[in-house]
């Protein structure tokens, strides 16, 4: 079974978890791979993710990705600060 390529863009403090702390990624994954599985591949813990988006729409972790999709991964945002912590 041939793979497909999906793009992933990781924002803010969640880049701490990604290889090389990179913001943009291209991954070759099996068809039917979900957003949640992509997070696992990149090592991003789900509890630190605020929301996921594909094509400007929110999706949940069970969303199956299609070839060419760009998954956006956002940390929680507070008053001008992206990331965790009680004071943010």
């Amino acid at each position, binding site marked *: 079974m041939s793979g497909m390529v999906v793009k992933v863009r990781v924002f803010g403090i969640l880049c701490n978890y990604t290889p090389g702390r990179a913001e943009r990624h291209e991954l070759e994954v099996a068809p039917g791979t979900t957003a949640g599985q992509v997070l696992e591949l990149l090592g991003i813990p789900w509890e630190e993710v*605020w929301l996921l988006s594909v094509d400007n729409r929110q999706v949940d972790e069970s969303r199956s990705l299609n070839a060419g999709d760009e998954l956006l991964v956002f940390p929680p*945002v507070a008053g001008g600060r992206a990331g*965790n912590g009680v004071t943010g």
Partner: protein
Amino acid sequence: MNGGCTGKILKVNLTEGTTSVESPGEQFYRLYYGGRSLIAYYLLREMKAGADPLGPQNVLVFAAGPITGGPFAGSGRSSVGARSPLTGAYGDGEAGGYWGVELKRAGFDAVVFSGRAEKPVYLWVHDGATEIRDASELWGLKTAEVEEAIKAQVGEKQARVAQCGPGGERLVRYACVAHDLTHFAGRGGMGAVMGSKNLRAVAVRGSQPVPMADPDAVRELGRWFVQRVQELSGGMQDTGTPGVLLGLNVAGGLPTRNFRQGHFEGADKISGPTLRDTLLIERETCYACPIRCKRVVKTGAPYHVDPVYGGPEYESLASLGSLCGVDDLEAVCKANELCGAFGLDTISAGVAIAFAMECYEEGILTPAHTGGLELSFGNGEAVVEMVRRIAHREGLGDLLAEGVKRASERLGAGARRLAMHIKGQEIPMHEPRLKHGLGLGYAVSPTGADHCHNLHDTAYAKPGKSLQDLAALGILEPLAAQDLSLDKVRLYTYITNWRTFANCSVHCLFIPWDFEQTAQLVRGMTGWNATVFELMKVGERAVNLTRCFNLREGFNIHDDYLPDRFYQAFESGPLQGVAVSRAALEQARLAFYRMSGWTDDGVPTREKLHELGLGWLVPSLDFIA
């Protein structure tokens, strides 16, 4: 005083041209700390009820806090407060940078101004010495010109300058106070209060170290954060506050076209990553902070944005961008630059222009009002031009300089429903239909709509570090962002007391110090045996002081409201169909009053004030039952 505070408060009578020094003693500092609490204390004590915010009887206070100037990230902030000309309520704004640190090095914790100078002046504070100097030749100049001139006049390149701009001189009701040109005490119109007093600037320079009771403990915490800055604040380093814009847009909470929408199709073009990858030339910072979240931008033609004024924060990108339907990043940066040069709050300026754009769309304003300017949503050039006209009070700019509340009252009933303000202060760039607890906070905030001492529900909607930290206060479960239950009111009450403490200490909320670390910083700086309990009480005390100030000025439960637009559902976007429930908001407001120990009309009880050590206030406030 073992450390932290200098123990001295400088008092300046601008009418008489005299200065004096007050030493209120350690108990005073232990109760009030600094910042908001100290300002509210002086306003209640020294400003007569009913004083005109733009008259000589208003009292204007610049205040640092007991941990300002410590060798750790977040200690560079200071506050400016007075009765707000925008709201008539308690008002203050905070700025980062270096000014507050320099004030303490010069020997003072705060400066309290009263009266009005006969002609334009500035105050020069230098290692305990003070001088009121002529500013006639500075009047009318842009902020960068004034900063340069003052440094030359006092012969100190390292002097730190806080000043109002030409907007403040012209009494634009949301004029800000610029600190070192790139840090702004934006909210509440404190620049207009300076202008009304003929006070153009306060320049400070000192050589005394800020005293610390336990320097080793403080330095150890400072190093702890420096070593973990990328892990804890890497996102802020990378994109600064603009980094939140895209996420809010995807969630449906990016204020767009005067809050009609929460999703902007041009968000990518004005986002944090786009700013970083295109116009950013440098990152700046505040005293002792390794994050460097401040943006510095530069452009060529047609706008030639001057990097001397730094660059836009998230609030400015949204208020001058999406809120006006503008996706031209260079135009937004130019409008932001002009707000810095003229001394305007970018939030209120953007909301005022977006209000005018909607009025124009509805025919309430016409080309006759705008002098032919096409004031349509999406017109970036028009936003830039309107900032200039507001600062100079030219044509329609004169009306908008009054703020949207007054402007809408003059334009008539059709305009009032388009005026996005609470208590007269324009709404910041956070959407109550996304964050319902924030909506409660907007309604009950003492300063009018405010996002800083507010709850941002999205941070507590899932398990994670924010919630782990809050376990120290007994809050253990996540709550949905659109929840307005009693549990949410409890969360709001705790968070606003804590964040108001940060307004008193005065420290930066972008540094992820947890509760206990913050208490350690206070202990290390002051030598006090301070606990998290004490810090929460300091915040609660400030909430009650400002509430009492507002009640004394005639505010009541009816001033704790949300604009009707937030009770109307979005017609499109990710939050299509979502609105704040008016009944739920009113129930939450009542619950907040009761949890705060206030009457059902929102008046602190005699017992609550005594519980907070504010019994002295009771005899002077006839509304206390």
